């Protein structure tokens, strides 16, 4: 039902993070093969595979690479976004801890495709063990000669800001500045880190590359849906019997993930709602979970695949309280650069807190909805648009719960 596991196939091995174990299972053979391929052929293969960014935005990976200016003189950078900080999302840490060489091999392949000689891996500061494991793997790969012969990897630890996972905020932070997203245009592929053309890819996205090169784009595409190839890793948390990370096709349904893989709903056993793609995805009601988990499937359902962080809520969960917690997170993490995001995240948090404390007013609900909608699309980055996902969907889909609180 869930098919072959690709990224997580070695997770059962205690030594999966070592070079020896990685090589034993065919590690770095894709890199050998990629070296015989023209860079444009690699990009074409990735385009055909229908691999889409798995950090949240779901943008086609091969197409992103092709935005790097042709015949660019000077450095081109590859940046791996390992600043995993979306509430409910905890998949990349497993790859960094258990398959760090897959990240490195993927980087080697991507770097060849975009003609980059330096790759930065920006790891969330709180991820101490993943950083240790990954740094050790970089040392091993250097000693074994995979790195240092035309491509180097720099490991950079973040200082703990959610916004540093946003592509351009990450670049600002990497450059040594405050983690503020940058105005676009220019886009990173034209003018990114340190002013050079830059591709930012997510950890999980990059880990798929060795398999695409080894087994072909057609095979990878066939694993998923028409518009998205492959499998992906779902981090499942909340009221389920077996929380954790599951790998399965992107054509899996949310219901299958919750009931077949994660063992069903705990708490009072009755599903109330699910957030399918990290905390910024719009919430789904229990009757809306027969959707496939690919980027377009969830988009059509009015929510998003995002980072595939699945948060499950049973009937004992208070949706207003859940919204308050999410609102507190976004108010805390807004970088403060753009006015609508800076002011409205704080304002909406205050309103939701007041509602939960029983001091809500009837008009508060419409104020939140109105403010959320007015702020959409007015900011430099997608942070506020992300925050709006829960603001609007929690209230629209569970309005009765909110109204019960404000009419008290």
């Amino acid at each position, binding site marked *: 039902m869930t098919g072959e596991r690709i990224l997580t196939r070695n997770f059962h091995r205690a030594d999966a993070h070592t070079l020896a174990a990685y090589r034993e299972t065919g590690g770095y053979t894709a890199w050998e093969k990629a070296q015989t391929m023209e860079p444009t052929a690699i990009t074409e293969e990735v385009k055909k595979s229908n691999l889409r960014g798995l950090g949240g935005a779901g943008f086609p990976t091969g197409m992103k690479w092709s935005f790097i200016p042709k015949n660019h003189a000077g450095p081109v950078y590859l940046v791996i976004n390992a600043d995993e900080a979306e509430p409910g999302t905890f998949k990349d840490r497993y790859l960094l801890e258990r398959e760090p060489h897959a990240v490195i091999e993927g980087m080697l392949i991507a770097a060849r495709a975009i003609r980059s000689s330096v790759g930065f891996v920006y790891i969330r500061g709180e991820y101490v063990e993943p950083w240790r494991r990954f740094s050790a793997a970089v040392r091993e790969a250097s000693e074994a000669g995979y790195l240092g012969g035309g491509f180097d990897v720099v490991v950079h630890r973040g200082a703990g800001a959610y916004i540093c996972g946003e592509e351009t905020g990450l670049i600002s932070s990497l450059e040594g500045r405050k983690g503020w997203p940058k*105005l676009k245009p220019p886009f990173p592929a034209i003018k990114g880190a340190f002013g050079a053309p830059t591709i930012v890819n997510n950890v999980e996205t990059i880990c798929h590359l060795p398999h695409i090169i080894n087994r072909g784009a057609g095979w990878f595409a066939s694993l998923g849906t028409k518009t998205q190839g492959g499998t992906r890793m779902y981090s499942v948390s909340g009221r389920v019997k077996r929380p954790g990370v599951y790998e399965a096709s992107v054509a899996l349904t949310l219901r299958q993930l919750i009931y077949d893989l994660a063992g069903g709903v705990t708490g009072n056993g009755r599903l109330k709602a699910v957030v399918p793609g990290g905390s910024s995805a719009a919430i789904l009601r229990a009757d809306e979970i027969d959707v496939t988990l690919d980027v377009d499937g969830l988009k059509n359902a009015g929510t998003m695949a995002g980072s595939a962080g699945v948060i499950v809520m049973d009937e004992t969960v208070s949706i207003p309280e859940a919204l308050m917690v999410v609102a507190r997170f976004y*108010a805390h993490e*807004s970088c403060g650069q753009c006015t609508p995001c800076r*002011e409205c995240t704080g304002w909406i948090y205050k309103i939701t807190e*007041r509602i939960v404390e029983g001091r809500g007013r009837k008009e508060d609900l419409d104020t939140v909805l109105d*403010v959320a909608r007015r702020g959409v699309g007015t900011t430099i980055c997608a942070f506020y648009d992300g925050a709006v996902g829960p603001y609007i969907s929690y209230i629209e889909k569970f309005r009765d719960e909110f109204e019960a609180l404000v009419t008290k």
Partner: protein
Amino acid sequence: MPKLTIDGKEIEVAPGTNLIEAARALGIEVPHYCYHPGLSVAGQCRLCMVDIEKAPRPTIACNTVASDGMVVSTQTERVLETRKSIMEFHLINHPLDCPVCDQAGECWLQIYYMKHGLYDPRMVDEKVHKPKAVPLGPHVILDAERCILCSRCVRFCDEVTATGELGIFDRGDRSEIGLFPGRELENKYSGNVVDICPVGALTDRDFRFQVRVWYLDAAKSICPGCARGCNIEVHVNRRRPHHAQGRRVARLKPRFNAAVNKWWICDDGRYGFGFVDDPSRLRSPLRREGGQPLPVAWDEAIAGVAGALTRHPPAEIGVIASPKMANEDLFALRRVLERRGAAQVAFVVPPRVPGDEDKLLIRADKNPNTRGAELIGLGGDTAAILAAARARRLSCLWIFDHDLLDAGWPEAETRAALGAVETLIWSGPNANATSALARWVLPAAAWVEREGTFTNFEGRVQRFRTAVDPLGEALPDWEILGRVLTALGEPTPAARAEHWFRELARSVPAFAGMTYQSIGDTGQMVGTTREAARA
């Protein structure tokens, strides 16, 4: 040259022009806070939204470069609604302390609320509280609650002065501007952050609570602080003389001139007007008898000075003019000297402390009109004139606005020179150690009390205009000199400085063809008129 349409009007702009500037060129105002033409584009305030044909949603005009065929609308319903919303967001946490905020009358939150906001506030929760009245440096004070985080001040310190004192700290609605640890906002241009702050977050320690801005009058002027000649506005407090302890000049503000100072002035210039209302100002002409200064009427002083110039042989008359004097004064002085046939004139006095200079605006020469004095032909050897005085080869010495006892010369030698002449005449706005030795002291109007022109180090002739009346009986130097000339038998009809400028333009080739009209508000380079080329 991209050609685009904004609100139905076509315009061609220079490549790279953003939509705020393109609209401005058509007289269309796109409201904005964080955008400033002298700073990098930040795109943070999100107020300057416009609709661009085919774009799915409004776009910020500051970060959008005009391109050929672009169709822009600044007044669609969608744009107006967006603006209104952004205004509401700006004001969510802004305190309503307008009645005590010293930005009242100059606050773009107030102005834009009236023009583009006008909504009923929906925010009922406690606002975020932040530090108030925090001194950032010698000149600037911060009220963090009023700050809308436009980052103009931060970018100014990063990009213009490259001193980097300021940053934005914390995140979300707790964000606030502040100093990096151990730093103070003490760069030489710190006052400019007050000018560019669109709200009442950064105020001027010298000006705050002195007078409400709507009681101020403004006159276009030129900073006399150095040879740059920065364009300024002099803000004066004439309608509320009981405010600010009667201080008449309330503040100086930079006035944009692309060729001279752009949007900025230095702190030395900005706060250098204190002498105008200083107790040392001379209010009436003085005659000194046996060490005692005696106030006299102008008629007596003019007669006394003219009498001295007539009595002393021209070869024994020395004049030390000042590069702080206007072109008009210097030319009138030249006429007086020509009338008497006196030839010993100079104007350069070495300062006691050498002046500093930088790459932005500040010039080492702290005089506004050195170039003018050179062109008008008053150059000479000041030290030689003093040496002649010491050797009693001079019997009459007329000094303009210098304190020779506080210059880069040995004080005893200077004192000996000043003591050796029979008639010492001194003109200037403020008394000093040198004026205290003069037989005749002529009170001159300060630059804000009169009009005239200065020629800056690059040769740009620029007009300054009257902001307040002369203090006491003080008169502009050109008028004092005109009266002396009349007493010497050469009546002059000069009732305005402009008369002397016309004379100057007639006589000195570099100024040929120039008029007050041709100089205008932004100045004119010497030697650039057709008449000057012919001469």
